[in-house]
């Protein structure tokens, strides 16, 4: 890390000096200062152990994914064991997302719901709650927005807004119940949110099969509702032939809003205080019950918004009635963990996971199942769980080595004496 920072400093000074050598010396000086300031800020962020941990965890995840692929890699034609294929697969995972502008656009397109679910989990984390119910809130939110999109007749922008609102409200309700139980009955939200996932699964199964919205040909909920699709605002000209729309902008905007709420408002402070110490916040006169319920509702609302972003686009995910829990809630957990629940960090980790997923899709032609992403994600989660211990372990080892060296030196000098 130190080497990197020294290197950065040197290049920054060099760039600054170059500007200085220009005739506008004053501007050069100003720019030098600005560069130094920005560089110092970036270094400060990069030097945090948190970021290093996340990077290491991601690397470890990719490594384990590679080992698993190596074990099963086969030549697509002959069926013989072929390690080169695994390497090609890994390269596809790493580069597949950025091969063309189209795939890059799709990375951003798919990232929007992931970022929002990550925010849902991350927000709950920040307020001391563990929201495993992201999946359930997502499914309920999705079916609510699809119902509004399919059944309500309205002019264009309002129809879309109403459908999104429906998703948000449904998600919030699904978060409200575990919050209520936690606040008044002290039931662990981990269990209740898991149970809510299963209830949501059967509920949405029933609702999706309803003749009101079900389309026999698509074997999914009807997806043709011209006035409720997410607008594109010309982003598709930027990334031609991709599915990108403004959902990614909405996701980024929401992340900033959540960051603002948590960092700069009294409400955010109270919610975090409750998460930090229940008793302490009670003593400080914060309404504990209200805070818990509110945080769960906001978390649910974010997951509901994610669902709207997932199911309302022109070419959406199909909402099929199946009795399987949508795995996006668990993706959200890993996204929140990678970013250590920092809302602004979640933007990047969400895009990263979306990128890996896109790469895994391109890898399928080599005969690997796309489940490899979930293996990588689970290893990342695990590594982050144990990362702080490993960090302290390395620190201790370094200190020990230092101490040993000191002792040795002392002994050496004492020998001379």
């Amino acid at each position, binding site marked *: 890390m130190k080497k990197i920072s020294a290197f950065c400093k040197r290049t920054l000074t060099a760039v600054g000096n170059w500007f200085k050598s220009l005739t506008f010396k004053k501007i050069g000086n100003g720019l030098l200062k600005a560069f130094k300031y920005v560089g110092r800020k970036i270094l400060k962020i990069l030097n945090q152990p948190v970021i290093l941990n996340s990077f290491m965890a991601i690397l470890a995840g990719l490594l384990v994914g590679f080992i698993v692929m190596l074990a099963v890699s086969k030549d697509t034609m002959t069926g013989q064991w072929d390690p080169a294929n695994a390497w090609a697969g890994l390269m596809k995972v790493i580069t597949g997302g950025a091969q063309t502008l189209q795939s890059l656009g799709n990375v951003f397109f798919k990232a929007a719901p992931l970022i929002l679910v990550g925010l849902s989990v991350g927000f709950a984390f920040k307020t001391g709650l563990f929201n495993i119910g992201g999946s359930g809130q997502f499914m309920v939110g999705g079916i609510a927005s699809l119902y509004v999109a399919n059944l309500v007749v309205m002019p264009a922008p309002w129809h879309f807004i109403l459908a999104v609102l429906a998703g948000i409200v449904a998600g919030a309700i699904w978060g409200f119940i575990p919050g209520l139980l936690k606040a008044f009955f002290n039931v662990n939200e981990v269990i209740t949110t898991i149970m809510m996932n299963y209830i949501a699964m*059967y*509920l949405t199964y029933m609702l999706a099969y309803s003749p009101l919205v079900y389309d026999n040909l698509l074997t999914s909920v009807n997806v043709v509702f011209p006035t409720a699709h997410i607008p594109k605002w010309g982003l598709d000209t930027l990334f031609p032939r991709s599915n990108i729309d403004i959902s990614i902008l909405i996701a980024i905007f929401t992340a900033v809003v959540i960051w603002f709420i948590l960092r700069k408002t009294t409400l955010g402070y109270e919610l975090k205080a409750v998460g930090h110490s229940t008793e302490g916040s009670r003593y400080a006169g914060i309404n504990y019950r209200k805070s818990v319920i509110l945080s769960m509702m906001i978390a649910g609302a974010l997951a509901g918004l994610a669902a709207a972003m997932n199911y309302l686009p022109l070419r959406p995910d199909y909402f099929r009635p199946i009795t399987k829990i949508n795995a996006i809630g668990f993706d959200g957990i890993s996204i929140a*963990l990678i970013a250590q629940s920092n809302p602004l960090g979640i933007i990047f980790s969400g895009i990263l996971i979306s990128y890996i997923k896109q790469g895994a899709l391109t890898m399928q032609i080599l*005969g690997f199942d796309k489940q490899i992403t979930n293996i990588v994600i689970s290893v990342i989660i695990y590594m982050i769980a144990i990362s702080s211990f490993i960090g302290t372990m390395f620190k201790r080892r370094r200190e020990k080595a230092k101490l040993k060296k000191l002792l040795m030196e002392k002994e050496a000098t004492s020998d001379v004496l």
Partner: protein
Amino acid sequence: MFYDNLINYLDLVLIVVIPLIIVALAGMFSERSGVVNIALEGIMIFGAFIGILFVNGKFYPHFPEVQAILDGGGVTAFQRAMTLQAEMFVDMLGPLTTYLLGMLVAAISGAAISYFHAVAAIKMQANQIISATAINTLTPALALFLTMSLGLGESQGTDKLPIHGSVFKIQEIPLLSKIPFIGDVFFTDVFPSLYLGIIVLIVSYIVLYKTKFGLRLRSCGENPHAADAACINIYKMRYAGVLISGVLAGIGGYFFVLGYTLEFDATVAGYGFLAIAVLIFGNWKPFNIALAAMLFAALLTLSKGIAFFPALEALNIDGSILSMLPYIATIIVLALTSKNSAAPKAEGQIYDKGER
């Protein structure tokens, strides 16, 4: 007619109740030692996956007849060959031996995967819920990935494993099956898991309450610092707790899948999480857990078993609503019982020797 229906329904309940008890006991051992284990679902899946592979004869070289069919080629031949391989494997060892060996394999694989949770939760001082979530994400993905990439599925290109559970059923036990009603329910046409589950329940009770080991385990979950002062190795006891939990959860998953479905697609329908609810409702005590599991199982089988009760079926309730019931009931039960729960005091807390 009603009698037959009742017997059928109870058979269905028994298939569900035994895995629930075993997995809830798995959770009990872990939580009593002070480690929260919501990875039960993932461990169940892994145990079931490896166990089913074993029972299907995937770890045994192809029989010559099977190889002959495979050499013949063709898409349908693959499926036929795999079915034959499974049948011949069971014939070779005998159903009961295969069943028990499969159980052993499931137990070992369950312990192996739970070891990761143990290391993270005990040695690495990680957040126990996060490391468990990692395992819950890993195992279904790993199972599906391996099935797809290694072509273990029932036919090429599917991620579903075929399950031939009914061959392992014990037709009837002589003499005992002649007892009216009880004989019909407990001693005819049942899985060996029924008896094994009852044995596990009793042994768990004895281990937890009548042995030195059990006392030490419980003390680790209640007050680890005091236990440490009494020269008990907390880390060792917690490792033991989590590994026993892995063994039992692996077995539970294996029993569940063999009895419950005809295809395994890397899911145990949330029974790992339900088992945790059973554990909480059963107040972390073996026989209470058994009672709680029976109640849950009766609810869980309602949507499947409603066909056996014409009077209820006539009400024409949507199947989805019936399927939702156990989960709703869990939430209500948890809300009502949370006030007087006897959870282990140090549950979920990281034990650090240097603390205090």
